[in-house]
């Protein structure tokens, strides 16, 4: 059996940043396991620019952003295995993986960092009626085909879902000569960044239809067209609003789901809201010495935040390996109400935490001119005015150790949206 201090599952942005951070915090024997043939994860197919403004103060493409971290990985002489699929992790932190060269391998780790990312919601999970012809892709699959494999999925395209990947693919397919007829969005607002609506749809005159969904797919062998309909406030199609769009391709960009098959089998507690592990402020799961970061923990809008979070996970995993578990103080739960769907972390231990801690969360609806508030039991300590918050964009509040420690009998922290 191989022995490593930290084994990291996934060589995407989260895994790379976690590995580099763990090394910088003093752990020598680190191994990154990646199932694809290169490091970098999904950034390799995100050839558009707009990454890294927070981290590098300049605009990079996905491969460039990943490249910076890969360079650091090489500089730090961190080991990694490509084309390697992890099959299981035990509570004793034995990782079972396989690849073509070594066959089945078992690795004993002292700590494990989960960084497996997420996957797109599939047609099967969306319950779209109609036949099952060729020509239906998730937007990310189409992105990989166009940007990495050199195939064009189709010529006349309808996109369902206005998340960032859908918007980016609307532009990409147009640049490659396809006709994108419409982007339909079930919700009354887009799930993507505003800048992407401008530079991916408006720039090319692609219409965005809010409160619309696909109610029928036409075509048996290959998609021949789709029917869109408007939906009411309960997201039910309104009869009489159907419109037929001839097309040969339907791209689905309908949400991302953290990929936690390995975590579930390991017994990691999963949040029903995020579909990612429930973690404390060290980003440690309920299984001691198993940490999580990146899109496997919760779906991020910006990779910069993934890198920051992974940096913290790497640091805490390193501390765990070097000093063991610190158990002084108690974990205070963070409760969410009124518009806030979840927070990461779920608990925070004031004794153990750093001087400052960033709590990230998403809201459940669009709120204008509101306040983001944080309460320590009954006392309001943060009251931050925001002109607009939306589910598509991650929000954050920063808690300070000093503030939490000053509150001796603290039993819960509450994060909520308050109307102005």
């Amino acid at each position, binding site marked *: 059996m191989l022995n490593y201090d930290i084994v990291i599952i996934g060589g995407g942005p989260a895994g790379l940043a976690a590995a580099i951070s763990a090394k910088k915090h003093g752990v020598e024997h680190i191994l990154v396991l990646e199932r694809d043939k290169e490091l970098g994860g999904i950034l390799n197919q995100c050839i558009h620019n707009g990454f890294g403004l927070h981290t590098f103060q300049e605009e990079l*493409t996905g491969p460039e952003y990943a490249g910076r971290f890969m360079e650091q990985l090489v500089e730090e002489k961190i080991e990694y295995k490509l084309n390697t699929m992890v099959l299981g992790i035990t509570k004793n932190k034995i990782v079972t993986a396989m690849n073509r060269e070594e066959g089945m391998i078992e690795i004993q780790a002292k700590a494990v960092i989960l960084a497996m990312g997420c996957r797109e919601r599939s047609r099967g999970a969306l319950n779209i009626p109609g036949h099952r012809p060729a020509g239906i892709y998730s937007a990310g699959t189409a992105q990989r085909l166009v940007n990495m*494999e*050199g195939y064009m999925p189709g010529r006349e395209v309808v996109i369902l879902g206005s998340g960032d990947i859908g918007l980016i693919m609307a532009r990409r397919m147009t*640049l490659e000569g396809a006709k994108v007829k419409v982007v339909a969005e079930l919700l009354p607002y887009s799930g993507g960044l*505003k*800048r992407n609506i401008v530079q991916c749809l408006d720039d090319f005159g692609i219409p965005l239809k809010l409160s619309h969904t696909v109610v029928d797919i036409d075509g048996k062998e290959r998609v021949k067209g789709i029917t869109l309909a408007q939906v009411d406030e309960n997201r039910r199609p309104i009869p009489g609003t159907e419109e037929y769009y001839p097309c040969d391709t339907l791209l689905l960009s309908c949400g991302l789901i953290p990929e936690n098959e390995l975590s579930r089998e390991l017994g990691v507690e999963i949040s029903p809201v995020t579909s990612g592990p429930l973690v404390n402020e060290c980003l440690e799961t309920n299984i001691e010495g198993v940490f999580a970061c990146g899109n496997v923990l919760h779906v991020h809008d910006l990779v910069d935040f993934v890198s920051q979070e992974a940096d913290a996970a790497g640091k805490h995993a390193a501390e765990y390996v070097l000093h063991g578990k610190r158990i002084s103080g108690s974990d205070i739960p963070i409760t969410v109400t009124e518009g806030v769907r979840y927070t990461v972390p779920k608990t925070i231990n004031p004794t153990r935490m750093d001087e400052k801690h960033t709590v990230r969360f998403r809201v459940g609806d669009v709120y204008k001119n509101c306040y983001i508030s944080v309460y320590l039991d009954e006392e309001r300590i943060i009251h931050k005015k925001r002109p607009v918050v939306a589910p598509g*964009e991650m929000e954050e509040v920063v808690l300070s150790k000093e503030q939490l420690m000053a509150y001796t009998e603290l039993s819960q922290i509450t994060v909520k949206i308050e109307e102005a």
Partner: protein
Amino acid sequence: MEKRELICIGCPMGCPLSVELDQGEVVSVRGNTCKRGEIYARKEVTNPTRIVTSTVVVEGGKLAAVSVKTREDIPKEKIFECMKALKGVKVQAPVHMGDVIVKNVADTGVDVIATKSVGSLS
């Protein structure tokens, strides 16, 4: 006085900008939270530009394609001309990130560069 409402694409915040123009001259920019917003607004109403990203074919490389971008932003109306210029371009591996793939693309004075390194086969 002409007024135009824009959304800044300078960063993910997407600030709503309002620009006042007098006979094509920018008089004021409001709504931006940083310098980037003002620069974008001034450019967008006078000479809108964009970075263009795409891929070109690699021969003899570990990967079939390499991702590329215009080193700087180019005029918006040149986007499709730029794409056309990239059609059929083939490069020999190895390619290094930052290598110039097409010089002065579509007569914009801007080069197209590789955004990824691709090693040679064997």
